[in-house]
């Protein structure tokens, strides 16, 4: 494990801290999915969003998840991001088995270890830039204001700390969302179509930002249709109809 290990601790177990490419754990893998199935019920019908997926993502890697709409990309992101639990199989992030955690433990895991970047930014319109960055720390006894300002500087928005989101451009909003994702210094950053709403140039700058996070030792998983992201990614996961059809470098 790198120095940016998952907080809240690995829980050991036979899978250890990672897995081989075929699902067997290795010490270098930040994310390990082992025979994961996710099934939703829609009335009488069962929808298999993911079927028997096993995969690994190494630490400090930029991983791209690709696939057509409805292939299970978002479901995969939800499971990796501790926002949902699998119907079958195991999800381990940073050595921690998320499959057995209750809602509070999942929330705590997300707060301490996962940063999210959404396609539509999901900024709070009545909070200014620095307040949006501080949103995940709202309930903390001592909100890290200086760190938030430092992150705004890193994404090039320090001078705009008091701007409301409505007064920021699309690229600025997404950079602001990246700063928010980093406020708790997470080991894992998940991005859902982060460039989907941006022009090519702006998207590239956001991608540069995300790619730069891996140099801090963070693992970045990006769900994207953008082939540019796949080109830059160290790991590419391809899904079709809930099945992992390819994992490559």
């Amino acid at each position: 494990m790198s120095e940016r290990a998952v907080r809240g601790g690995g829980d050991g177990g036979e899978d250890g801290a990672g897995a081989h490419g075929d699902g067997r754990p290795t010490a270098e893998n930040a994310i390990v999915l082992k025979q994961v199935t996710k099934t939703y019920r829609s009335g009488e019908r069962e929808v298999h969003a993911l079927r028997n997926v096993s995969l690994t993502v190494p630490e400090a890697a930029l991983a791209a998840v690709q696939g057509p709409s409805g292939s299970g990309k978002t479901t995969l992101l939800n499971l990796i991001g501790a926002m949902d639990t699998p119907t079958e199989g195991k999800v381990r992030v940073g050595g921690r088995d998320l499959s057995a955690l209750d809602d509070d433990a999942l929330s705590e895991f997300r707060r301490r270890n996962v940063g999210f970047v959404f396609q539509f930014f999901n900024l709070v319109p009545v909070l200014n830039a620095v307040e949006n960055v501080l949103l995940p720390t709202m309930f903390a006894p001592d909100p890290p204001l200086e760190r938030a300002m430092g992150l705004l500087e890193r994404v090039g928005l320090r001078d705009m700390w008091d701007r409301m989101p409505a007064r920021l451009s699309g690229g600025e909003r997404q950079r602001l969302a990246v700063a928010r994702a980093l406020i708790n210094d997470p080991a894992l950053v998940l991005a859902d179509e982060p460039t989907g709403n941006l022009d090519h140039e702006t998207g590239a700058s956001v991608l540069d930002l995300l790619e730069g996070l891996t140099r801090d030792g963070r693992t970045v998983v990006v769900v994207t249709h953008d082939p540019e992201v796949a080109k830059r990614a160290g790991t590419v996961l391809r899904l079709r109809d809930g099945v992992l059809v390819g994992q490559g470098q």
Partner: protein
Amino acid sequence: MGSTGPEPLTAWRYVSRGIARRPLRSTLAAAGVAVAVAFFVVFASMSAGLHREVEDELGRPRPTHVTLEHQSPTPYSSSDLALLGAVVATYLEGTGAGIYGEGWALDPVVELTLSVPREGARCVLWGILPKPAGETIASPPGISPTAPLSAGRWLTADDENATGLVCVLGASARESLFPGAEVNVTVSLGPDASADPWRFPSAGEYPLDAAPDWTSAVRGPFTATVVGLLAPGMGGGLDDGVYVPVHPLLRALGQQDGGVYYYPRLVVTVADGTKTDVGALEDELGRAVPLTLARDDGWDRDSFERAYGQTQRALDSWLWAVTSVMALMLVAGVSDTMLVTVAERRSELATLRATGARRRQVSRLVLAEVALLGAIGLVAGLCVGALATWALGALAGGALIAPPHLAWWVVAAAALVAMGAVTVAGYYPARRAALERPTEALRYE
């Protein structure tokens, strides 16, 4: 924020921004709370006012009445009354006690304002009770046995028991009613056959709480021998007065039987605040005349409580009805408002959950927002309610059974009801918000 520099985001800041982002909706929700609170304050203050009035009434010290019922077929005579009056006067000297016969106050002066038949002429007939034990007499204000007389003498205790009625004339009364009248002249008091009957003012003009039916009781005219003439210049109504001893006057005015006035019932009142030994007084009275004693405080507590209890219950029923309806409307209104707010913020709440907020933290944010709205509405409602209560008391206090009273418990109950109602109102939206799945953050724009 401007030039004040960045500040950390706290839950309260987030909540207050949440309220500010929908000013109209927030204002309407707070106004709903304020209206409900104001109505509650007004109704509860009316109830509190009545409570206070009743409590004051129940706690007020009251005169003790000792009712003397006659034992023989013959009612008490005026001489009995005089005797009992003497007992009371002796026993209760200076205690403010009084004795009543059929509601006639002899304490110790009876003032009867009479209209007389002569057009434009008017006099005041003063019935004066000479104290049997002394030489002095009880007097109306400004009149005393040493009052300057232009002729004759003042009334004495002997006049009380005299067969015939005597009088002292004030200067103006003499001039207007009995011009040229001198001492020892007989004058006629009361209506003559050719004139209208004496017309007495309404009871409210008497210094008596319960005046008998004077018009029917009066028989006249009757004659009185002038024994004295007051010197002129006594001023005010004194110059207009005709002064007679009270018991002969009562006998003359009231029912007569052989020149004696009879009272079927006598009431001795021991005035409020005295430390009279009523039992000892009863003994004294019992030694003076045959009597049956019945003591009461002249005030039926049960009847009072029944009468006011009905009003109080009616008012309290209204209070509860209004409170219940207002609370239900408040719960429905605020709950609906917050549900809309929660629905609008699904993405935001899901983002909070995605970034690590626990369910109960999200739930508390919604409850805090409702509580803040409720608190704003509560303060506004208390101000409006207090103002309305004051205005009600000032403008319509006379028409109410009791003036409204803004008691501390009204404020406490308003706060309790309002905050309780908004908490209930916020519960379901807060629960809905808490159950928002973090995965929804990825679905919404």
